[in-house]
């Protein structure tokens, strides 16, 4: 049985640019798919097709079992969309925005009003509820946008880079909301440029590049292909490199000894793949201290989107800052509203 979101062979071209070049997706009900890729990969175009905003040149898609191309209006009754840029009316108050959206989901006025109040409370916007959204901070606007997508708690949610540009505190708060939704059974398709975010929220990850899904799997599977976490140490004294290497080898993959530790002599940098996360760092520091190796710098390096991309495609994730996604603004020329690659 196809999932809550199912797409086959989606193709969309804008002029010479193939924004989607045969995208296949399947998201089982109640799970989260993270669509991971750099600017210009086709993430937003995919979301726009699945949310009925854009007709593909070819391919088929169903959302909540309904054909997106044949019955777009029925699809709209089952979805919520939270965009990359907060699509709220900045001259309306938070409350007015949510009531309007509720009415347009065909709720009666009292139901729309009650739901707006609940959501404003839940998203910590009660105090600002009757101020125009223009006066909101970026994080508050994003929360309002997400609340607007949740007015009817649709069974299928689409979030296009929900945390791009948010500070860590707001990002964390949004993640909590997303987890709550998923715990309640919502199916979610989430696009992101951050591997960490996909790792944190998604059951499955599809890596997209140049309009195609180039890899899919759980984050562990992807990380296995990418190389996982590494501890990087810069020692102060060149003479301690050999001893430090012996220490680090104990934390590397079993049976590989010192071979697992990459050494860059001129920068006095040693790198070793590890499993075990941040708590490992304290042990490494203690052990290096015990042998008298002074440390200039130490850190746990997680695989980044770049690492994933380099291992999957051989090229970096973000080819130059400010490259824009074809169709992200739109083919007919709405101005691009992309932020630079993170």
């Amino acid at each position: 049985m196809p999932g809550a979101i199912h797409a086959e062979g989606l193709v969309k071209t804008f002029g010479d640019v193939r924004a989607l070049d045969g995208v296949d997706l399947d998201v089982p009900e109640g799970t989260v798919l993270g669509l991971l890729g750099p600017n210009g990969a086709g993430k937003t175009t995919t979301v726009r097709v699945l949310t009925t905003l854009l007709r593909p040149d070819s391919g088929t898609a169903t959302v909540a079992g309904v054909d997106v191309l044949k019955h777009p209006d029925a699809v709209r009754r089952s979805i919520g969309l939270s965009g990359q840029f907060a699509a709220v009316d900045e001259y309306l108050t938070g409350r007015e925005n949510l009531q309007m959206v509720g009415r347009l989901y065909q709720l009666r006025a009292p139901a729309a009003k009650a739901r707006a109040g609940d959501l404003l409370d839940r998203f910590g916007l009660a105090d600002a509820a009757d101020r125009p959204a223009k006066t909101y901070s970026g994080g508050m606007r994003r929360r309002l946008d997400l609340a607007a997508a949740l007015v009817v708690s649709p069974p299928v949610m689409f979030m296009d880079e929900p945390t791009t540009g948010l500070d860590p505190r707001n990002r964390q708060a949004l993640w909590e909301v997303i987890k709550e939704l998923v715990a309640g059974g919502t199916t979610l398709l989430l696009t992101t440029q951050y591997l960490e975010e996909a790792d944190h929220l998604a059951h499955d990850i599809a890596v997209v590049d140049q309009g195609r899904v180039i890899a899919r799997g759980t984050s562990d599977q992807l990380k296995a292909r990418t190389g996982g976490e590494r501890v990087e140490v810069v020692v102060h004294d060149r003479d301690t490199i050999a001893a430090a290497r012996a220490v680090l080898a104990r934390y590397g993959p079993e049976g590989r000894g010192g071979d697992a530790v990459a050494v860059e002599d001129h920068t006095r940098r040693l790198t070793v793949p590890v499993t075990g996360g941040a708590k490992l760092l304290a042990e490494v520091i203690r052990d290096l201290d015990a042998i008298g190796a002074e440390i200039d710098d130490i850190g746990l390096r997680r695989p980044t989107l770049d690492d994933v991309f380099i291992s999957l495609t051989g090229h970096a994730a973000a080819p130059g800052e400010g490259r824009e996604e074809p169709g992200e603004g739109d083919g007919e020329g709405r101005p691009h509203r992309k932020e630079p690659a993170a």
Partner: protein
Amino acid sequence: MTTLIDTAPEVPAPRGGLARSVADSLVVTRRNLIRMTRIPEMVIFGLIQPVMFVILFSYVFGGSLNIGGTTDAAAYREFLMAGIFAQTVTFATAGAGAGIADDMSKGLVDRFRSLPMARGAVLTGRTLADLVQTTLTVVVLAVVGLLVGWRIHEGVPKALGAFALLLLLGYAFSWIGALIGLSVRTPEAATSGGLIWLFPVTFVSNAFVNPEQMASWIRPIAEWNPFSATVQACRELFGNPGVVQSDAWPMQHPVWASLLWSLLIIAVFRTLAVRKYRSATA
């Protein structure tokens, strides 16, 4: 913990097409009217411009133009008002265009298009809100007109008929604006794109000079201009001087011509705009 979901209201079964269209259009109209109260300077600038036109035309051109056989400045002011009324209502085009273009560029059209709402409601809500603003402007303009000496001579019912034709023309032109707003990239482009072609439309007409004084090739254009029909109808219904004597059908039957032109413009441009909206930003 799942308050987000447990307390969520059910999406009601879809209502019939017309009921939903009307309800959704009114929701969007209300939203646009709330916006106007939050940006009062836009409404105020919209009022100042036509008032300025009345004063400039009355006291700069008044007395230098021959109206109905007289160069009396008072006669010109009475002649002028129908033209200014009509020009003012057609400037609603720019407001509608800028509003729609703004919604597109801010991502609001995406939000609306992802909701299970009537397809034409965003545009209808925009044009209806503009109609409210146009009505307000026409009222202010009528007061200023009365102050500079404009009068109605054929009774209140006919005058109300003239105002109805004016508002219908303004509503029709705001659909042209909606189409422009969907077709350009920025609100600024929509404003200038909404105004630039209005100048020839409003000047190649009977609004400010009598077409009988125009070159023979341009005169039929002026007489068949939809805008001229409304101006002529207003002069007849207000009983103002300067009614064009011509064999052209719209000048002979200006009320019908005005009505038909406006309905035709609505039918054509509403269809085009709603079609454009359905694939907007795509």
